[in-house]
């Protein structure tokens, strides 16, 4: 479960699990996180979690709310963000394990039903539904409010249904359960982002460069930094070098002739490039090599 770690002067005071969709922070005792310090306003800030996305919002506090050193009115919390209220720090930890195996179950597309959006908001959490909207001017109040109540319904309903065949068609009845619903299942959803981010970041560690061997610019080098790099002359002969987790590959794109690698024309499919391969294309020779 995602949590907040409350500390002051580097001393950890408390760990607070984000177990509710709305967690209030302030000096007065009715707050979920009470910080009894005069620098903290009575109702200082609130964290509203919409499914797995936590939003921090300053409630017009006297001394302001800071995230990573910057003052914020409203902020989409990310893992390791540090929220500061006066001398107190709250570190946000989204308990994401990269590559969480169950994430796929929750990543399936689901529908928020428009019909359900028209129903009145859940009476047990009206403030929660209104909160994310409050800071937004104008027309929006119907949509996000409805969506929020619905999203919560979905989160609650998602739990028992996670492995069942139906993930669509959430009924109004589940809304009532929302406030009390344990967050364990919504938490699992957090895994998705990290997993995909981790995957996206899994670019190959090796770097590669092309060096021109012929022509006026012989000796010039170009690092292959982009996911794909085209070579050749459009309309005459073009090939593309793609950077993949497995390495670098050259593929024929257009033209009557295929690129030649180490003296042999490549086949139609992608051809894996090795260190010091010599590529000939549109009358130009280039050498491919990995950077140390």
């Amino acid at each position: 479960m995602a949590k907040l770690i409350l500390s002051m002067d580097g001393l950890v005071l408390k760990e607070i699990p984000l177990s509710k969709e709305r967690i209030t922070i302030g000096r007065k005792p009715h707050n979920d996180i009470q910080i009894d310090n005069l620098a903290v306003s009575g109702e200082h800030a609130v964290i509203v979690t919409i499914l797995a996305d936590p939003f921090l919002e300053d409630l017009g506090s006297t001394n302001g709310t800071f995230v990573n050193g910057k003052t914020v009115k409203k902020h989409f919390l990310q893992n390791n963000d540090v929220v500061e209220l006066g001398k107190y720090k709250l570190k946000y930890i989204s308990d994401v394990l990269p590559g969480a195996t169950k994430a796929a179950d929750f990543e399936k597309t689901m529908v928020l039903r428009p019909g359900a959006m028209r129903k009145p908001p859940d009476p047990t959490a009206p403030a929660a539904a209104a909160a994310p909207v409050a800071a937004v001017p104008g027309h929006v109040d119907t949509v996000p409010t409805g969506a929020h109540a619905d999203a919560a319904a979905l989160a609650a309903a998602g739990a028992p249904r996670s492995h069942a065949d139906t993930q669509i068609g959430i009924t109004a009845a589940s809304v009532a359960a929302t406030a009390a619903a344990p967050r364990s299942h919504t938490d699992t959803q957090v895994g998705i982002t990290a997993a995909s981010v981790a995957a996206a970041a899994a670019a190959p560690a090796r770097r590669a460069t092309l060096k021109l061997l012929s022509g006026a610019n012989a000796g010039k080098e170009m690092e292959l930094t982009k996911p794909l790099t085209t070579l050749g002359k459009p309309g005459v002969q073009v090939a593309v070098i793609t950077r993949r987790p497995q390495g670098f590959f050259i593929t024929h794109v257009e033209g009557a002739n295929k690129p030649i690698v180490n003296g042999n024309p490549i086949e139609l499919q992608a051809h894996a490039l090795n260190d010091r391969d010599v590529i000939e294309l549109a009358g130009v020779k280039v050498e491919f090599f990995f950077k140390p």
Partner: protein
Amino acid sequence: MDLRQALEIVSHTDPGMVRTNNEDSIASIPDKGLVVLADGMGGYNAGEVASGMATTVLTTELRQLLEDHAPNAVDPQSGQKAALKMLQQQIAKANTTIYRAAQSQPQYAGMGTTLVVALFYDNKVMVAHIGDSRLYRMRGNEFSQVSKDHSLLQEQVDAGMLTKEQAKLSSNKNLVTRALGIDPAVEAEIHEYETRPGDIYLLCSDGLSDMVGDEDIGMTLQALGANLNLAAQQLVQMANDNGGRDNISVILIKILREYPAGEGLASKLFGWFR
């Protein structure tokens, strides 16, 4: 009118790296300039049943309608193009078909599908979509998203709760606010756009757009636009290289030349001399 000379269409669909079944469904009628992409949802095999129904109903019905009616004909009473009416009616029909199947067969209960349809005629494209399957356009060096998702995330962005950059970090990418077959009636969002020779249109499921950034998709179309087949494969491969967490489907349409409507000699001559 046969549009095969004016449009190059390629498509590619892949289950991805995580899922064993493919719940996406794609179809095209090249001579009529129609392409359809659907991303189904619902347990077991219901998702692919829903998306399959959507593409089947739309292609079967629209093929017949396009045989008999010109999509660019304007109805004198409503002032609307025939294409609009055709799309509205057939999407409604697909919705009803899926909805009824879901109601009558327990194993299909709750199934639904997203949808994006593009119909090309008279140097224009009419695009209908429901949910988070998208249409992008590459024109010159400019790559842009044409359709706007019907999703919680998009509503949050519209409401100013999230910026586009923050939206990429959200965990709630999988919630659509509209889908085909979930309710007795659904409204598709339909728009018409001018096309230009050289344009490349991309229809895709969220398996691509969630895994590959718009910038990289644009770069791929830019670099490989000359070889549409390779571009489609490359897009799918990039999504898989980034984790391939969902089914990935792409349909690419390149406008090879103008395709003005009109059967008369005058308009044909006009078409030649443009």
